[in-house]
C-alpha cells in the first residue's frame, strides 16, 4: 500500500473573521485526477493556494508525500500551478517562459533549452518557441502555461480554472489534452473549477465544496447519482428535490410524505425523520410509474441531443425532465400541457436532511 500523495488533516484557513476553509479532510492518491468544484467563494482556490504554499493554513496539517508542508514556502515546494490568468511572463518568449522553473533551479542553459523545447514539442507548439507570448492565441498560451508547469517533472500539478478564459470548443479540446497528459505522465492533478462539465469529464474523483466546507468527495457518478447533501443535489446536475417526512420504512423501501403526495424510495430511515427524495432529471419518465405526479410544462431548453423540460407541479414546485430530443415528438411535452410524470422507487435517491 503506497502512502497517499496529499493529505489535508483538519485544515482550516481564516482571513481575519472570514473562514475560507473549515475542517477540511482530504486524501489524494498518487496518479489521481482530482477536481475541486464549487461556486465562487466556496474555498476551492484557497485550498489550492495552500497546497502551493501561497497561503498557510491557520490550523490543521497539510502533508505532501508524508512531509508536513505547513511552513514550507512556495519556492521550496515542487507544486507548480497553472493559473486562471495563466500568468505567463509577458517580457519573455514562449521558450523562456517554459525555462523559468529550470532556471530557478540552477539548470545549465543548454539543458534548459533542450528540456523546454521537448515540452513545447510535446504540446505541439515548438514552432512558436521564440514568439512573444502576448502574440499567441488563447489555446497556444494555455499550452505554454502547461509546458512551463510540467517542465520540472513534478509529482503534483495544481490547476486553477485554467480553461475558464477559453472558447467552448477549445475547452473540449484542452480537456482531452489534459486527461491524455495526466494518464501518460501518471502524475497527480488537482484541478479547481466551477464547471461541473469540466470536473465530470476529466476527474477520477470530485470534491464538492460549499462555504468553506467539503460537502462531498466521490467519483463523478457517485456525486451525481447519490448526493449526500441538499447542496450537492442542487449544485450537481438537474435534480428534482422533493422534501418531506418518512411515514413508513420496511424491507429497504421508505415512504416519504411530501407536498406532492407519498412516494417510495429505496433506502433506510427512521419513521418521522425529515428526508427528501431526489430524482435526477433523466430518471423522470413521462407517463405514470411506481411513483407518479402531474405537472404543467412551462418551458424547454434545447441543448442538442437532449432537451430539458421545466414543469411546475400544482403547489408550484419546479420539476425538470430530461428527454432525448428525437423522442420529444411522442411525449406531448409542449408548453402549457399538463402531463403525468413517473419513476420507480429504485431510480430515486433518499437524502436525509442534515440536522
Amino acid at each position, binding site marked *: 500500500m503506497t502512502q497517499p500523495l496529499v493529505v489535508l488533516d483538519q485544515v482550516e484557513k481564516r482571513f481575519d473573521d472570514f473562514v475560507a476553509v473549515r475542517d477540511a479532510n482530504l486524501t489524494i492518491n498518487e496518479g489521481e485526477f482530482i477536481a475541486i468544484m464549487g461556486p465562487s467563494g466556496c474555498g476551492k482556490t484557497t485550498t489550492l493556494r495552500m497546497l*502551493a*504554499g*501561497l497561503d498557510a493554513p491557520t490550523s490543521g496539517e497539510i502533508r505532501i508525500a508524508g512531509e508536513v508542508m505547513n511552513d514550507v*514556502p*512556495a*519556492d*521550496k515546494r515542487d*507544486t*507548480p*500551478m497553472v*493559473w*486562471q*490568468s495563466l*500568468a505567463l*511572463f*509577458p*517580457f*519573455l518568449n514562449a521558450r523562456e517562459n517554459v525555462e*523559468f*522553473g529550470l*532556471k*530557478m*533551479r540552477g539548470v545549465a542553459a543548454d539543458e534548459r533549452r533542450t528540456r523546454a523545447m521537448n515540452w513545447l514539442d510535446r504540446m505541439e507548439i515548438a514552432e512558436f518557441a521564440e514568439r512573444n507570448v*502576448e502574440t499567441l492565441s488563447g489555446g497556444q498560451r494555455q499550452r505554454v502555461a502547461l509546458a*512551463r*508547469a510540467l517542465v*520540472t517533472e513534478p509529482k503534483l500539478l495544481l490547476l486553477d480554472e485554467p480553461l475558464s478564459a477559453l472558447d467552448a470548443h477549445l475547452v473540449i479540446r484542452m480537456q482531452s489534452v489534459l486527461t491524455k497528459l495526466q494518464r501518460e505522465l501518471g502524475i497527480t492533478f488537482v484541478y479547481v473549477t466551477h464547471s461541473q462539465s469540466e470536473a465530470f469529464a476529466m476527474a477520477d474523483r470530485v470534491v464538492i465544496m460549499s462555504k468553506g466546507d467539503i460537502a462531498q468527495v466521490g467519483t463523478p457518478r457517485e456525486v451525481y447519482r447519490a448526493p449526500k447533501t441538499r447542496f450537492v443535489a442542487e449544485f450537481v446536475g438537474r435534480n428534482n428535490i422533493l422534501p418531506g417526512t418518512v411515514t413508513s420504512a420496511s424491507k429497504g423501501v421508505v415512504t416519504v410524505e411530501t407536498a406532492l403526495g407519498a412516494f417510495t424510495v429505496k433506502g433506510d430511515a427512521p419513521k418521522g425523520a425529515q428526508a427528501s427524495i431526489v430524482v435526477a432529471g433523466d430518471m423522470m419518465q413521462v407517463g405514470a410509474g411506481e411513483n407518479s405526479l402531474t405537472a404543467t410544462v412551462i418551458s424547454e431548453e434545447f441543448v442538442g441531443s437532449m432537451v430539458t423540460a421545466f414543469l411546475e407541479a400544482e403547489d408550484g414546485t419546479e420539476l425538470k425532465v430530461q428527454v432525448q430530443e428525437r423522442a420529444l415528438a411522442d411525449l406531448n411535452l409542449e408548453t402549457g400541457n399538463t402531463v403525468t410524470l413517473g419513476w420507480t422507487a429504485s431510480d430515486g435517491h433518499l437524502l436525509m436532511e442534515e440536522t
Partner: protein
Amino acid sequence: MTIFLRAYLVLIFGFVFLPIIVSMLFSFNSDRFPTLPMSGFTLEWYQTIFADPDFWRSAKNSLIVAGSTCIIATFLGFCTAYTDYRYSFRGKSLFLAIILLPPTIPLIIIALAMLAWFSRVGMSGQIVSIIAAHTVLTAPFAMAIIRLRLSQIDESLEAAAWNLGASEWRAMQEVILPFCKPAILSSLFLTAAVSFDEFTVAWFVSGLNKTLPVHVLEIVQGTIDPQVNAIGTLVFGISITLVVISQLLIFFRLQRAAS
C-alpha cells in the same frame, strides 16, 4: 467647431513655445540686441559660451546633479511604488499622500526650507545638497510613473515566479524589474530632465557650485547678451529630448498593453 478648436490649440502652443522659439532664433542673430529685422546669422554666441570656463563648470555640475538625482529618485520611487503595490498597512493612504506632497509645495518655500536645513546641518553650498534637494522634488514623479506600470501587472505574476521556485529576491530580479523596465527608464529620463531644468531650488542651495540654469541667471543679471539665448537653447534641447524619450517609453508601453 473643429476649426475653432484647432485654432485654439495653435494659439495655446504658440503662447507657450513662441518665447522659446524666439530665443532660439536670436541665439543665431549677429546683433547684440534682440531687434527685428534680424541682422545676420552667427555662431558667435555659441563660441563665446563654449570658450567660457564658467559655462563648462556649471554644465558639468548640472550633469552630475541630474545624473545622480535621476538614479536616486528612481530607486526611491521604485521602492515606494512596490511597497504600495505589494503591501497594505495601516496609514497607507497617509504614507502615499506625504510621498506625493513635494510637487504641491511652492518651489520658493521648499528652496528656503532646504537652504535653512542644509546650513544648519553644515551641508549648504555643495553639489550633494543640490542632489538631495532635487531628489526630494523628483522622487514623487518617479514613484507615479512606476506605480502606473505596476498597476497593469497581473497579480499572479509574482506568485507564479515563487511557485516556479524563485525566492522573493529572485522574483524581484526576474519578474518585477523586467516588467517595470520601461517605466524605470522613463522615470530616469524624466527625473533627469526635471533636475537639469530646475532653477529655484538650485539657486538657493547651490552656493558656488552653480548649475546651468543658475549660470544663465547670473549672465542675465550682469549683461544683456545673446549668450543667454544660446545656453537656453542648449538646456531646452537637452530637457525636451529627455522628456520626449520618457513620454515615448510610457506611450508605447501603454499602447501595447491596450492592444
